[in-house]
């Protein structure tokens, strides 16, 4: 489905919102204001944006350790996100979860996950619930190329296929799992080669092109809504920063040339060039969006910095739901 101009604007808005949020988070991390691990999404924005623009608000998302992008794309509140990443009381998880467990169940974002493959079965459970309830909501599982080698992924996707559940599987193939190249750990050219083994259709898209991702997601979501079961989308993409943290160049496991070649295909720059050249969105409008988002991100940083650390009294709350009978 050809995207309308409104859709294009939305794609751009969400990509840029992710990018600016992540760059700010990276700066805070470098400035030692962000504790723990930080897995930045920069480079892959077209995937989260493309899929989430195609989704309905009631559709759910399960995510990974690299989950900020999915929450931003789902409409996450940047204030709460930034505060959470800083371990503050006003964060999404009141500081208890951090980057790897960020979530917003009201937005149907069922959480990042610290365990590779851990979130995929949860998306399948949400898909099961949708089918059980007889609604036409779809759940989307985002996962990395590396995670397709772990057992939980395999069990989950097979179960979704066998039970014909309304789930969309979105593999963000950035060619690395941490510091290991994909060709070292799987003997296939494309991750999508696995789809046939589950009896579901698979499609490869250019993960640096939000429109391509969007179109594939529209298809996959529609198929799921029609009750025809899961689809597997492999989006070829790249993360610019290191697996964890911010360093970009000068690393042993990949060459600077490779990084630069991918950056030349940048999903936001390319998108902006194409839409302005085609006269679909004006350069001014794009610039205005950027100004607006920069302000939002700046405010989020301030919000996070000003938010207090959680009260010690909350340490032992939220372990169980209290029974009220």
């Amino acid at each position, binding site marked *: 489905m050809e995207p309308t101009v409104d859709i294009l604007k939305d794609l751009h808005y969400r990509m840029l919102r992710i990018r600016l949020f992540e760059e700010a988070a990276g700066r805070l991390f470098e400035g030692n204001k962000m504790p723990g691990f930080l897995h930045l999404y920069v480079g892959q924005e077209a995937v989260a944006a493309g899929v989430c623009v195609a989704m309905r608000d009631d559709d759910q998302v399960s995510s990974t350790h690299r989950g900020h992008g999915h929450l931003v794309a789902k409409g996450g509140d940047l204030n709460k996100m930034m505060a959470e990443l800083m371990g503050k009381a006003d*964060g999404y998880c009141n500081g208890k979860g951090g980057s790897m467990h960020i979530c917003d169940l009201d937005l149907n974002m069922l959480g990042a996950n610290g365990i590779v493959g851990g979130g995929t079965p949860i998306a399948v*459970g949400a898909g099961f619930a949708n089918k059980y309830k007889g609604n036409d909501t779809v759940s989307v599982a985002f996962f990395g190329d590396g995670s397709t080698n772990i057992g939980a992924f395999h069990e989950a996707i097979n179960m979704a296929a066998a039970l014909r559940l309304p789930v969309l599987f979105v593999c963000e193939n950035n060619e690395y799992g941490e510091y290991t190249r994909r060709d070292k750990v799987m003997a296939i050219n494309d991750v999508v080669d696995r789809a046939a083994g589950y009896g579901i259709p698979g499609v490869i898209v250019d993960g640096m092109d939000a429109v391509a991702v969007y179109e594939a997601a529209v298809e996959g979501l529609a198929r799921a809504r029609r009750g025809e079961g899961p689809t597997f989308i492999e989006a070829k993409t790249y993360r610019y920063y290191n697996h964890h943290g911010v360093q970009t160049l000068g690393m042993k496991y990949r060459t600077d040339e490779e990084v630069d070649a991918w950056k030349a295909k940048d999903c936001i720059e390319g998108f902006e060039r194409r839409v302005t050249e085609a006269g679909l969105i004006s350069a001014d409008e794009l610039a205005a969006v950027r100004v607006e988002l920069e302000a939002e991100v700046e405010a989020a940083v301030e919000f996070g910095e000003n938010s207090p650390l959680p009260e010690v009294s909350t340490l032992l709350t939220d372990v169980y739901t209290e029974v009220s009978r």
Partner: protein
Amino acid sequence: MTATEPEAEVRELTYLGAFNEALFQLMREDEDIFIAGEDVGLTGGVFGSFAGLIDEFGERRCVDTPISEQAIVGLGIGAAVSGLRPIVDLMFMDFILVAMDQIANQAAKLKYMFGGNATLPLTITTNGGAGVSAAAQHSQSLEAMLCHVPGLKVVMPSSPADLKGLLVACVREDNPTILVKNKRMFGKRGPVPEALYEIPLGVGNVVREGTDVTVVAYGRMVPESEKAAERLAEEGVSCEIVDPRTVQPLDTDLLVASARKTNRVVVVHEAVRFGGLGAEIAAQIQEEAFDYLDAPVARIAAPFSPIPFSPGLERHYVPNAKRISEGILETLGRPVPGA
């Protein structure tokens, strides 16, 4: 006995029958409840636990899954977070080890990691215990591992009536619970109220009152301890048997009160002694009743080896009434026959 406990007029049901009846009644009451697991639908469960459910509730609510324990638990998590009330079955307790990430890293921690913004009304049912020559990978009692994980509740019923009432509590509970049936009790009969009732989680039960020694036991070790207590009664020993029923949360108050009364405690379980729940119970009792104890808290449990296949070995592996009696006599400082 609290108000929600079984009443007087009851029929007899088997342990499995009580489980099955509770499921029928729960599923009639609440459309959000479904069961999922290997062979739980068409076959009614390999032990018959789920017999007949598919006939009344259909394939939609009785879901035969692939052999995929991680995805089975994950299915439950995702569905529970989405507002359903899943019961997922792992055929043998040993298989929790296959799904341990989903159980202990995901289900148990989800609510906390999310800062409280999630409710997880998930029940996992499974079957534990030795004594049927099922060997090392189909006989374990692994409750100690589960009890050590904040966020889970763990239930080990010792009678048909408890099984029914505790299952109801688990399913109605808004937290992940694991209910462990004991394989050797499937056919055991007992009085079970017909109506749907709940035995609250975390509330133990004084199964037998006594004055000389407290025996803390759960699951199948309760009837074994009762046998031991009967025998010892003939020799003038008065045993109090306390069954915590829920091993997480543990009804420490009840155990401590009994320990303070009898001044001697023997903990019994089927699990391996080292690092078993008996260690936690002993640790808590000596913490809370130190000045009352006339002897160390003793533990009767399985020895430190995997579970052997041969009945010739297995019968020496699993604690029984004889070993329990001996342990009690030792703790009382009395002569142990044949020792």
